[in-house]
Every structure is written in C-alpha cells, then in structure tokens.
C-alpha cells in the first residue's frame, strides 16, 4: 500500500485542482454570459443565445475549466473517500469569498465571515482524517 502521506498529498492536490477549476469555470461562464447579455425566453431568443454562447471564446474557456473539474473529481474519487472529498471541496466557497474581497473589493456581511470560518475549520477537521477507508480495487484483486 502506498504510504498514507503520499495518498494524502495526492488527494489534497487533486481537491485543490477541483476547487480552482470549478471556481475559474463558473467565473468564466458568468463573464461570458454577461458579454452576451440577458437571454430572451422565446424560441428565437434561445436560438440566438445558443449561437452566441458557442461562438464566445470566454464560454469555451469556462467549459475547459469545468471539464478539468469533472476530470479531477472523477480521478480523486477513484482512490479517496466520497465523505472526504465532498466536504473538502466546500473550501471553494471560502476561497470564493476571499477572492471577492481581495480582487473585487466586495463587502462581506459578518454572517458570511462566520460561515467562512466554519467551513475552514470543518475542512481542516476532515483533512486530518484518513483520505481512504475502503479497500483498493486493484490491490484487492492482486
């Protein structure tokens, strides 16, 4: 069995990749859709919105990042516990708040700061546990 330390580092790197890709992807989609403007909910409006989204470079950058998210999510779940990866991924919410404060100079309510602190403490607690508690398929077969 690979050393637990190695599994832990590998898992944390993949969770970080997941969080960065998911946030970057959402941000790019948001930016791309603001370039396109509000979508009209009519047949011709939706057809026009579809044409604009598939020809928008920013949207494709967003799709690229979200594909990266899906790939890193699938990869990390091939060895790590779902009950480890899922709460650890919530770190993204805390990161998004910090980015909004630092780069967008948004003001954040005290309630939201409490939430950020709870998420960080929660993720640290989950991070202390063993990333994998079930048998490894390839090792079980060997």
């Amino acid at each position: 069995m690979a050393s637990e330390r190695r599994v832990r580092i590998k898992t944390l790197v993949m969770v970080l990749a997941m969080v960065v890709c998911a946030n970057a992807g959402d941000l790019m989609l948001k930016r791309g859709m603001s370039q396109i403007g509000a979508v009209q909910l009519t047949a011709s409006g939706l057809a026009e919105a579809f044409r604009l989204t598939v020809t928008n470079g920013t949207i494709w950058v967003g799709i690229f990042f979200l594909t990266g998210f899906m790939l890193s999510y699938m990869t990390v779940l091939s060895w790590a516990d779902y009950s480890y990866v899922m709460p650890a991924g919530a770190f993204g919410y805390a990161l998004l708040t910090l980015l909004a404060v630092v780069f967008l100079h948004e003001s954040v309510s005290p309630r939201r700061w409490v939430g950020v602190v709870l998420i960080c403490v929660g993720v640290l607690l989950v991070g202390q546990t063993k990333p994998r508690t079930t048998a490894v398929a390839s090792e079980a077969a060997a």
Partner: protein
Amino acid sequence: MRVILALAVLILGSTGGEIAITHGMKATGEPARLRPRALLQFLGRAARNRWFWAGVPLMALSFYALLILLSWEPISLVIPASALSYVVGTLGAKYILGEQVSRGRWAGVVLVCAGVALVAAG
C-alpha cells in the same frame, strides 16, 4: 409541500448520483499515473462502467429540481437548504459505500454544512 418534495429530489438526486459515480470510480481503479495517456485510458475504463452512467441521469434530475426550485424560491433560501446534502452525502458514504466516518470527520462535515448555509445566505 412541493418545495420540500423538490428539495428532496435535489438532495437525493445529487448525493445519489455522486455515490453511484464514486462506486463506479472505485471499480474503475486509480489511473496508473497522472499523465495524459494514462488518464485517457482511465477515462475509457470509467466510460464503460455502468455505475458511472447510473449517476449521470441522477445528477441531471437534481439539476432540474434546482432550476424548478429557483423559479419558486429565492436563491438565498435554496442554496443554504441544499447544504443539507453534505450530511445526507456523508450518511450515504457510511451506509451505502461502507466508508468509515470517524467523529472528527462528522464534526468537520457538520461545520462545513453550517458554514456553507451561512455563506450562501449572505
């Protein structure tokens, strides 16, 4: 009542879908190494796993429930309520996937759940 029903579909759909995908990925096994060629082979193996394909429609159903909920209720209610999926997902991981959820992990999950609800509520 219909809100609770849609919320149940949202939470059970997303956690059910993720649990099915986790089960599929565990059966797929780790990629030999994190290089493009090995990752493509890994994806090919995952795409032939039926549990992976069982998870996808469940997640689509959950997304549809989210869209419907957002048309009824404000986002500041819907997203905090959906933070319950952290607890539901952990129960599923324990009882369906057989993962060992220690006290420390449970404490972390509960804090994350409360934290996400607070952040999403603004």
